[in-house]
């Protein structure tokens, strides 16, 4: 389990990000004493740092430089000041990535996963989500169920990912479509239905029937 250190002085943002990352099984800690971020960093020994730029006492660039003196741990900057200058500064100060505020929780997790994989996960087993014994491998775009492995198209992967990330909830068709659009697949209502049906057939072929339920007029839910 990776440890992520969150240096953000806005309580709501810090706590929401913390809750979200904990749902993804990361161990997290919030910086509490902004005059001693380095001390807390050393105590927690994280594998990744999320760093706001505007902080009390010293700014995020300062702490990033301090961390860089003793560690190569990846640092992702979060900031509302997203002009070119700030992004260049962030990279110069040793930051690994820059996420402009306001951001999507999904974008945040995706970037964290990508950077963690690049920095630590040399074996490349990738990021996986599990449901009813089916294992979705996001990095390989495959689903493994009872020793059987099937390749997924980009859309199928995205649909399964969204559904599996929200296991006990009904995901509306609009949300699914928006997620697909956000990954550059400009589908319409019909294409979504076609995609879902094809995915269902694929799933039942490996014995996963009733994996995706339809909530009429609303959307879909995992079975």
């Amino acid at each position, binding site marked *: 389990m990776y440890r992520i250190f969150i240096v953000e002085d806005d309580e709501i943002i810090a706590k929401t990000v913390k809750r979200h990352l904990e749902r993804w099984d990361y161990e997290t800690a919030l910086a509490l004493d902004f005059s001693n971020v380095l001390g807390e960093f050393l105590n927690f020994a994280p594998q990744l740092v999320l760093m706001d730029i505007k902080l009390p006492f010293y700014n995020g660039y300062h702490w990033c430089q301090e961390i860089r003196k003793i560690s190569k741990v990846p640092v992702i900057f979060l900031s509302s000041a997203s002009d070119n200058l700030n992004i260049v500064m962030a990279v110069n100060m040793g930051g690994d990535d820059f996420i402009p505020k*306001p951001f999507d*929780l999904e974008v945040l997790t995706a970037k964290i996963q990508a950077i963690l994989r690049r920095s630590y996960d040399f074996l490349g087993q990738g990021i996986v989500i599990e449901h009813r014994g089916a294992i979705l491998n996001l990095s390989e775009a495959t689903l493994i169920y009872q020793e059987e492995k099937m390749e997924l198209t980009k859309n199928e992967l995205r649909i399964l990912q969204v559904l599996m990330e929200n296991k006990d*909830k009904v*995901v509306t068709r609009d949300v699914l479509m928006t997620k697909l659009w956000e990954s550059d697949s*400009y589908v319409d209502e019909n294409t979504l239905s076609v995609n879902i049906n094809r995915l269902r057939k694929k799933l039942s072929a490996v014995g996963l029937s009733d994996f995706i339920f339809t909530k009429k007029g609303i*959307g879909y839910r995992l079975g």
Partner: protein
Amino acid sequence: MNFFISYVKSNIKWILSFLLCEGILFTLMVMNGNPWEEVCYAVFLGVFLLVLVFFADGIGRWKRYRKLLEMEYSVAFSLERMENPQDILEQEYQKLLSILFEEKLRQENGALEMQREMREYYAMWVHQIKTPISALKLLLQEKGPVGEMEEELRELFFIEQYVEMVLSYARLESETTDFVVAPVKLDEVIRSSVRKYARMFVHKKISLEYEGTSEVVLSDKKWLQFVTEQILSNAIKYTSKGKINISVKKEGTKHIFLVIADTGIGIREEDLPRICEKGYTGYNGHAHRRSTGIGLYLVNRIRKKLGHSLSVYSREGEGTKVVIGFVLADTEE
């Protein structure tokens, strides 16, 4: 000629006095019984002197007049080229000028300072407001990851867009704003603009036709992104059903055009020439509550700074086509 008339007019009392003296001299000499030759000679001598004096003086005045005319071009920037005053009146006029000039400078600096402060405050405010927006967005996403909070998120998205516009507006006014022109991959800009508006496309059930492009153009990525987002936002705003088509067309080896066409309500012919004016909303503006007449105005100003062309074609009820023209980046290293 103007100068001549004005010169004579301002010296008329001297000329008349002189002529009066000549008349007295003439009368006295005639009454005295002087011979005609002597009378004529005396009068002629007098008139000759008069002409000589006024000619010399007039030339001097003429030169000063020319100098003043020339100063019309420079007086707004500096009073340095002013002649030495010839009398106490000129001296006082010059003094008044310098008082006005200094007052003007003071007011100018004051206004500039105020503008700068305003801009700084805008920029600060934008960053300030982004923190609660971010917090709210995270809370909404957490509460409704699967669609229960779509309406709230959509409204928040509008707030985000408007805040971005304020920031761009303030930055555009600032003379320190940098435009970093470099090769930009058009595809990346288009796709990330669409990603941003994905929620709007899906909500309004508008489909998108775009086949991708590998073209690279010379532009500033961040500003170009703002331009495409604004155009896309308009296209979505004024299209209630149908589709938006994004295509990239090459012309010759140097020019490339980004075309964003929608099947929306279009723009009235009489409104078309004025759509880039600040605050102009036209007929569509009356019918649409979210029009402010700022979006296209900003687009037009930014694209001018970037050196891109912009043309808008539209037919009411059929749709609108916006074309941005670029110079192709030299892809050879």
